[in-house]
């Protein structure tokens, strides 16, 4: 009897660890998307609701790039995967810059609501254009990267994909941290987010810094799109909606405008969602993020790591 119970506990621990790892992998992807929301908010004080669709475009860029890369690099291989991810990030960076330039910049001095509605318009535009160009039916994302099981220890199954997702996310977070804290353009981003007028008086070309911010955020979303597609290989033009909304909640949870907060928020949402669907019911999986949103708005609207924003006069 005693012995039996011990085995039972062991099983539960393994199961929990399994859920945790799955949750962290999903959370990493949400974290990468959330960073784009929070960066743009930090600089322009508006929510770019088209950001989730950049994630979708990242996955589709990968879909169309994969055969081209396969012609020059052995596929599936880690190098092919990285090449596809790199190029997809560049393509989406350019798309992000173009969207800002033509949809948001003309409204720089308009009421925030106008920009917000425009962002929703851009989002719908990307989704429907996606359906027109790519087709509405889900597509199978090609096998870019070989998947190996890493451990089956005691029923715990971790594969190379999960490690890859976590590893790539970690590298991207470190790169982002370096850019924002140690480079001139990163310092300019922080200066601009604090006071755009003063930043302009320093000789900072604020339009350029804003473009750069969109490029950075969109590149991270594209990376998330690729990581998502290698983990869940059915992609379609509306795939950005739910992850986009969840990542937005993650950014709010961490404290909108706060970069470490967005990363943390993403991980928390990913893990919570996985645990709830594993232990309670998968029916509620997609509702978790919104429950979290309501809770955070009630308890700490400034978010976990956010500071109370003093309304500037």
């Amino acid at each position, binding site marked *: 009897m005693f012995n039996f119970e011990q085995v039972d506990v062991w099983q539960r621990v393994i199961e929990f660890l399994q859920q945790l790892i799955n949750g962290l992998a999903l959370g990493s992807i949400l974290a990468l998307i959330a960073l784009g929301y929070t960066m743009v908010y930090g600089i322009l004080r508006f929510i770019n609701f088209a950001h989730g669709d950049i994630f979708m475009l990242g996955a589709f860029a990968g879909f169309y790039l994969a055969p081209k890369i396969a012609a020059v690099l052995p596929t599936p291989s880690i190098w092919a995967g990285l090449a596809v991810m790199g190029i997809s990030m560049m393509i989406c960076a350019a798309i992000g810059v173009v969207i800002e330039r033509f949809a948001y910049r003309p409204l720089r001095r308009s009421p925030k609501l106008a920009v917000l509605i425009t962002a929703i318009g851009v989002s719908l535009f990307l989704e429907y254009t996606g359906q027109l160009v790519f087709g509405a039916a889900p597509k199978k994302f090609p096998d870019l990267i070989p998947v190996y099981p890493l451990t089956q220890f005691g029923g715990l199954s971790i594969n190379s994909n999960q490690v890859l997702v976590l590893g790539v996310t970690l590298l991207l977070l470190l790169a982002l941290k370096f850019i924002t804290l140690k480079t001139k353009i990163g*310092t*300019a981003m922080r200066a601009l987010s*604090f006071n755009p*007028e*003063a*930043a*302009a*008086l320093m000789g900072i070309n604020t339009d350029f810094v804003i473009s750069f911010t969109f490029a950075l955020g969109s590149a991270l979303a594209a990376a998330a799109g690729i990581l998502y597609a290698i983990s869940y290989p059915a992609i379609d033009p509306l795939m950005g909606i739910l992850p986009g909304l969840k990542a937005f909640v993650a950014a709010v949870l961490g404290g909108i405008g706060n970069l470490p907060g967005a990363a943390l928020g993403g991980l928390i949402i990913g893990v919570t969602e996985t645990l709830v669907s594993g232990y309670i019911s998968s029916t509620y999986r997609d509702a978790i993020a919104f429950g979290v949103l309501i809770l955070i708005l009630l308890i700490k609207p400034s978010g976990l790591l956010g500071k109370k924003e003093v309304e500037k006069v």
Partner: protein
Amino acid sequence: MLEIKNLAVSYGAITALHGISLSVPAGGIVTLIGSNGAGKTTTLKTISGLLKPKSGEIFYDGKNIAGLPPHQIVKLGLSHVPEGRMIFANLTVMENLQMGAYLQTDRSAVRHALDHVFAAFPRLQERGKQIAGTLSGGEQQMLAIGRALMSKPKLLMLDEPSLGLAPLLVKTIFEKIVEINRQQGITILLVEQNANLALEVSDFGYVLETGKVALQGDSATLRQNPQVKSAYLGGV
């Protein structure tokens, strides 16, 4: 060096400047005084490109800079210390100064500018790693001026550097301003409500009233002017 002709600026339907003209000769200190809402800040913001003029011209070294974006104006050697200091409270003192030198690509030039700033404000050197938002008011003003000097300007515009500072500190800051003018040869356009002090340190003054130049003259002469005395110098 700076020549403004018939400059008019409005905020939507509100006209803040009704065609003002003023001139700042190279090497001098010119002050712009006037009561609340006279249009002093508006004038500086328009010169530095934060606001677009409705009409009029701003010649800097013979070139009309009216309507250029701020970063191009900074490049020409104009630097603006804004009202309320506007330091980057979320950055360190050092990062604030680096932002001041944003357009400087030559490292040794940045180093050189930094040496000058630290020589003028040794306090800033001690506080290099401190988050700027935690500096005292006086230190923040020093940082705002130091940051503006990092771009190696030829013309420095200061908007109410005395604002919210204790009298003793105001005196120190004004001494520094004169020092910057004399030792580094930087031309200064000084906006002040503290007319007494401003007319004391400057060579020439303009009195602004509801968006128009009401009076102008040598600072020494203006200080004797009965109108200026009663309205701005608190005299009887």
